[in-house]
């Protein structure tokens, strides 16, 4: 296991190098640059000379290989760079936005899992009966609903019926846990519900598969209580695909639930990445993508380790 972990950690280096290179060149496929983004307004370029001044200051007039070499050299020195627009360091942007993104992702996964696992089990155990039909219908409905639309509906419903909307000022979880929770709960429910729709169906199908296994039949034959059979024997095996799904969702959410972040004015990484892209803030974009790439790679490694802990049959090689 130790060798495996070391090997995976070492693999991060070439992976991040490839990611950094791809991000650098793909960003520059986009037409325009930050100088045009800063000085253009609704169809006209306000100050032609300013475009050149900004390009010169940011080194955008240098040949692409020179810019690439500068970016790589900067990375080797452990410097992720600064936003071309605001002059704020990428590290500071990550620090300021990571909490929202992580909390949103965690809360969404928790809400989704809390809904999916019991409903999935219930659906499997009541197969063909009305609770199963109801759960499957609802999961189909929530699967079809775009989560941002659900988010808007939740917001409008609370505003209309309870005259309540989430707090508008961003505070850290440690400073104001209740307010932060209030800000995050609606988008988390919106994301979590969509996730739950998929995960419920997955839990149901894997549960049905597991319940037909010989070892379950054996457990029942031994006279174990049905609850014990399900919780001790069936659930740990049935829940593995859900964990995989949760892990993938979490990794996806690290990149930000852009639309929901925007609707609920959450300053998360998703909004930052989209803004950096539209403003052609290459330094910020490259830095954020690299940091997120590293997060996701480490997260995937952790998931592999969790698999081993949950299922002793899995061997890491």
């Amino acid at each position, binding site marked *: 296991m130790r060798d495996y972990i070391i090997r995976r950690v070492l693999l991060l280096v070439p992976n991040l190098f490839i990611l950094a290179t791809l991000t650098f060149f793909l960003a520059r496929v986009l037409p325009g640059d930050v100088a045009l983004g800063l000085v253009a307004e609704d*169809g*006209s370029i306000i100050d032609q000379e300013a475009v050149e001044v900004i390009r010169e200051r940011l080194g955008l007039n240098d040949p692409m290989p020179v810019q690439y070499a500068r970016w790589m050299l900067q990375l080797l020195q452990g410097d992720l760079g600064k936003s071309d627009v605001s002059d704020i360091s990428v590290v500071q942007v990550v620090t300021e936005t990571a909490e929202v993104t992580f909390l949103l992702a965690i809360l969404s996964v928790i809400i989704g899992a809390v809904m999916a696992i019991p409903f999935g089990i219930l659906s499997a155990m009541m197969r063909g009966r009305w609770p199963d039909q109801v759960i499957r219908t609802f999961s189909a409905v929530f699967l079809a609903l775009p989560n941002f639309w659900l988010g808007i509906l939740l917001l409008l419903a609370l505003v209309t019926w309870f005259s309540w*909307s989430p707090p508008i000022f*961003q505070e850290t979880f440690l400073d104001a846990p209740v307010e932060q929770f209030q800000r995050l709960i609606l988008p988390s429910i919106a994301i979590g519900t969509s996730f739950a729709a998929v995960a419920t169906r997955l839990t149901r199908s894997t549960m049905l598969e597991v319940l037909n296994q010989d070892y379950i039949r054996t457990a029942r034959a031994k006279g174990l209580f049905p*609850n014990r059979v399900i919780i001790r024997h069936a659930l740990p095996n049935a829940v593995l695909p859900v964990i995989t799904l949760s892990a993938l969702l979490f990794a996806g959410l690290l990149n930000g639930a852009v639309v929901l972040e925007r609707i609920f004015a959450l300053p998360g990484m998703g909004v930052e990445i989209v803004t950096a892209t*539209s*403003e052609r803030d290459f330094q910020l974009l490259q830095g954020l993508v690299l940091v997120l790439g590293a997060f996701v790679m480490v997260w995937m490694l952790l998931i592999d380790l969790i698999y081993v802990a949950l299922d002793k049959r899995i061997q890491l090689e």
Partner: protein
Amino acid sequence: MKKKHITRIPFTLGLIIACTSLIAVVIGCGEEEPTATPVPPPTQAPEPTAAPAPTEAPEPTAAPEPAEEAMAPSSDGQRGGSLIRGVSRTLRQWDYNTEAVWFAPQSLQRHYSNLVRFDPSDGTTILPDLATEWSIGDGADSFTFTIRDGVKFHDGQDLTLEDIKWTFERSKSPPEGERYPRLLALQSITDITIVDDNNITIEIENPNAEFIQNFAAAWGIVFAQHVMEQEGGMNGPDRVVGTGPFIIDEAEMEEFVTSRSNPDYFLMAPDGDPFPYLDEMTTVALSDVEARIAAIQTGRVDISSFDPAEFAPAVGALNSIGDSVRMEISPLAGINYLSMNANGPPFDDLKARRAAYLLFDRLRMQQLESLPTGEFASVPTGFFGTVDPFIDEIPDIWEVSKDTREEALAEGKALADELGITGFEMVVNSRSFFQELAQLAAQVYADAGWEVTLNVGDSAANAELIQSANFEMSMSTPNVVLPSVSAFLLEQYLPGGREANAAPPPDKVYDLLADLQGATDPVDAQAATREIQKVMREEWIPVVPMGKQVGSSELIANHVQDRPGALGQWFNLHTWMDVWIDENSPRK
């Protein structure tokens, strides 16, 4: 055993229900009940706002009234409390002179003062600010300002004439690597002289009596030299030090700016104490329109501001929210037009430009842009948008008037047939508002027999096409106040202006511009303006004017009070000093 089995599942369900209830409780906890707002008189659906009054050339020597008299509100404001305003975006840079967009002044201008400022009630009359008096030199090429005594920066240091000199020298000659896109006009300053302890003279390159308006504009603020020259420059909120009515308190870039009142502010309110009335003022970014509507509906903010593009949802929200809020429309200065690339075919030909100009029916465009209620959401404009002193006459000019429209259309079609033009490609910003506007423009041309293909891209992508002159036509919608016809010409259409691909003007335009800039009699200025417009329509045609949205809108809680116009002038007034909240505010 069976009983246990049955009870276990409801327990799971019960757990879920309990969790859901807990979430609901947490949502509710820590919140005060939204304060009931007294029902005010019903708010009417907004009327299309008239364009700003025509700008008259200022008298050569102004005799300004004292600030206090000029600012007398209709009633005394109430002091205290805090006000929160939700906007679509806030600042991206602490030194907002370095960026062109108007989001930053919305959040930062209240911390600064100008030499002079616009009267909020009309947006054009010049009032005293740091300068108590001013005079314009005989040749209309110099301005002398008398600066009031005892003005202090927020850090306690005295404002000096050196600060003013430093500010405008910086605008004239930005440090290496910096540019101030909205202060280009100030680059024509030739000399700044401190005359004595209170007077400073600013000279400009060419006679232009209207130049004084640059000192009143949102970007023409005065900085503290000792702060700006600190290491790192304007690198954070602690460097936002001005002499304005509010002192910056706490701020996060692109999120919010909170300011507290400046007890040493130099302009006095009618009650004998300094402005502002508010103790605290916050601007917070809520990028989504639904979030801004929800925030005002639930009392999270006192004012929600909406871009021109969000006018229709704002009107819809007003109708659904009811009587606790009202809507105010800030006259929206600027112009929407179609830029023609004269660096290549077909619009390098005056005939093609004239065909495009004549085929575009501005009244039809206005009709297409009208609200579902039937009200007009835009006004037709000429080449100078809302600063045009003759904007009210636009619906009656030959090529626009219903009576003569057929003749103009026939001439346009004949020109198009002669050149064999059947349509063109139009570069359009990808934001939905612009796409919708472009589709309407395309429809107007389709009615006239031209086919328009839309080439949609984001701002930076379009800017690249425009910079490389790789387009036929593009839609441009500058909202920014260009203070006068001459400024419009210089900054927008003439070579060196924003329309870098516009056709060069006939030489006579420069002569007429000189006449306009040198005119000290408003009658002469109007005559020159009329002549310029005639030449532009017949011999130049740099763009195809479309119109302009009547205004940006704000939903304002009824406990927010202001003197007429103070909340308006979306672009020109963000000092908020004469806005107050009454006792019904939850934040008082």
